[in-house]
């Protein structure tokens, strides 16, 4: 029963990791921008939902505010930070440092506005229900998994069948060819930031209710996203999804075999293993440069 319990817990955690990581992977895979401030997008969405919710405006307005905030942040960051740096032939490292700095600025601004302590979104959905002897599952666990299925289903259809989705994949493959076909890479990049930022919203809201929030949690979010992106294969949305789920499951099921203090280390042991054995990741393409 403990193994089943840990599997369900791991799937819930993995669904949240996957939702967060796929947004980062989509942005990085399409634009080659190391969007370290993706963790800040998570924080902005989570705190906006929390603020609207505690102000008494309800869940729907909270979701709308969180989504609008996440999109606005992603687009503004792309337009006013990443585009100018890239226009001046800024290096990959320059973009990374700028993004890292923005993440710290957002952490401090959120701390100034909402306080630096711990806050949580109170909802009865976070309380577990005993399904059978020793097996407890909260409604939010099912919602997490459902969100993952719905969002990835929509994303898969979008990338496969829409023109914009095809453009995104084309941008990831060959930006110069995209220009040659008369498409605007900047517009496509903006779309990548919009979709990537939207994907983080459900994970941010659900985390606010399950594990609570503090302004400093963005770095942890980013660390998991990065691990899932590398394990899944850089640029592979499906690979990142699988990796996110696998990391969540591994972190939870590790409790069956190792002391609790090593569960987080399991994530990075898997990451290390992939870097050594399969550097291109689960579904990534091998490249020889």
């Amino acid at each position, binding site marked *: *029963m*403990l193994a089943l*319990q*840990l599997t369900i*817990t*791991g799937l*819930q*955690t993995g669904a949240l990791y996957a939702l967060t990581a796929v947004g980062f992977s989509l942005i990085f895979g399409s634009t080659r921008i190391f969007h370290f401030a993706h963790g800040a997008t998570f924080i902005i969405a989570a705190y906006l939902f929390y603020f609207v919710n505690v102000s008494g405006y309800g869940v729907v307005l909270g979701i709308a505010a969180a989504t609008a905030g996440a999109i606005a942040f992603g687009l503004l960051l792309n337009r006013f930070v990443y585009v100018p740096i890239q226009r001046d032939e800024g290096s990959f490292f320059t973009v990374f440092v700028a993004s890292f700095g923005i993440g710290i600025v957002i*952490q*401090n601004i959120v*701390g100034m506005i909402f*306080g*630096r*302590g*711990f*806050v*949580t979104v*109170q909802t009865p959905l*976070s*309380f*577990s229900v*005993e399904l059978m002897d*020793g097996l*407890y599952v*909260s409604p939010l666990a099912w919602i997490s998994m459902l969100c993952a299925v719905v969002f990835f289903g929509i994303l898969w259809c979008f990338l496969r069948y829409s023109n914009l989705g095809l453009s995104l994949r084309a941008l990831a493959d060959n930006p110069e060819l995209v220009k040659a076909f008369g498409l605007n890479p900047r517009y496509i990049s903006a779309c990548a930031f919009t979709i990537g930022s939207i994907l983080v919203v459900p994970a941010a809201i659900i985390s606010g209710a*399950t*594990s*609570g929030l*503090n*302004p*400093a*949690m963005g770095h*942890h979010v980013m660390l998991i996203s990065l691990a899932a992106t590398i394990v899944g294969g850089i640029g592979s949305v499906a690979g990142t999804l699988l990796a996110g789920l696998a990391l969540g499951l591994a*972190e*939870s099921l590790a*409790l069956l075999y190792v*002391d*609790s*203090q090593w*569960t*987080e*280390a399991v994530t990075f042991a898997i990451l290390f293993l992939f870097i050594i054995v399969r550097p291109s990741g689960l579904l990534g393409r091998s490249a020889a440069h």
Partner: protein
Amino acid sequence: MKQIKLIFAAISCMSILSFGTAAAEDHTIGALFPLSGPNATYGDVFMSGSDLAVEHINADKMLSGPLSIAYEDSQGLPQPAVVGMTKLVNVTNVPYVLSAFTGVSKAISTLGNRNEVVAVNGGGVGPDLAALGEYFWNVIPLVNLEVRAVMPYLIKEQGIKRVVLIYIDDPFGNSILDELESTLESAGGELIETMSVPTTAQQFSGIAAKVRAAKPDAVYIASYGAQQIQIVKQLRDNGVDQQLITYSGYLVPDALALPESEGIIATGQGVNYNSEDPVTKRFVADYTAKYNRAPTAYNVNYYNATYLFALLAQALEAEGKEVTGANLLAKRKEIGTFDLVGGNVSFQENGTLLFPIQVKTIKNGKTEVLDTIDFGK
């Protein structure tokens, strides 16, 4: 050339002015508090006590010049704390530093001893803090006393025998593990499982499943900052309905406000806020007026730590002596007892103040005292 001369003149004037304002009578002490990161919630709590003490000291003109505190951000972590302590000792040249957190305090104590700078802890509770040298003082009772107070009480009053410990994997968490093992053994209880968690962990639903499987009578939680609140929330959300027990580090506003905190048993130092002595009365009245909430033990400790500096420095100035770490230490030993918030208190040989320990429960976001254990009697 004229411009260069003007700039030179301006810089010279600024230098003279800055020397003028930094008169020898001005006093600066340092503080290494967590001002960012997941432990930042403590920084605000600690600063509210020390800042009020500075206001009182300056309003009373206790010292020949104004007192100020140079705050450095330790993040509650040893490495940034050592960087901050190095700056306070070598650049700001303070004789006295307020410290917090067990890991931080242990990390900076060597610098304090080597440079004869007094470090005063009002927030860390690891038992090791009683043995960090002459220049390291504690104005807070350490957690070994808290464990020794709560476990016999719970075994006797609530029949709790089987305990699971969830503890943070750092010096503080390990000290709780040692203390809980020995206390439970001698009190007739049993530590049936221990689960350590990394300092960065945020997901505890798996831990909750393991706790349920162990079927304990109670769960002792030994962490701090946002993590300890996350543990409590996720245990309760994931069906752990056993008695939760924790220590004084949990009694911060964020944790008390959490609905899942209801019914938790926590220990903390006993402070008589209704004491008639003028220091306590003034502190309680002014703290409540300034922050619109009742003070907690942490506020008291950092008020006391700051006020203690003023008492010692005042005595040194009266004798025409310089306010240095070595002189502050000598003066503390000479005076022995001090009128601080909570009454007239004395330091033990190991530089730690002895306070009674209260066993409390959280009800409706506030603490209610269940029992008081005075180890000094």
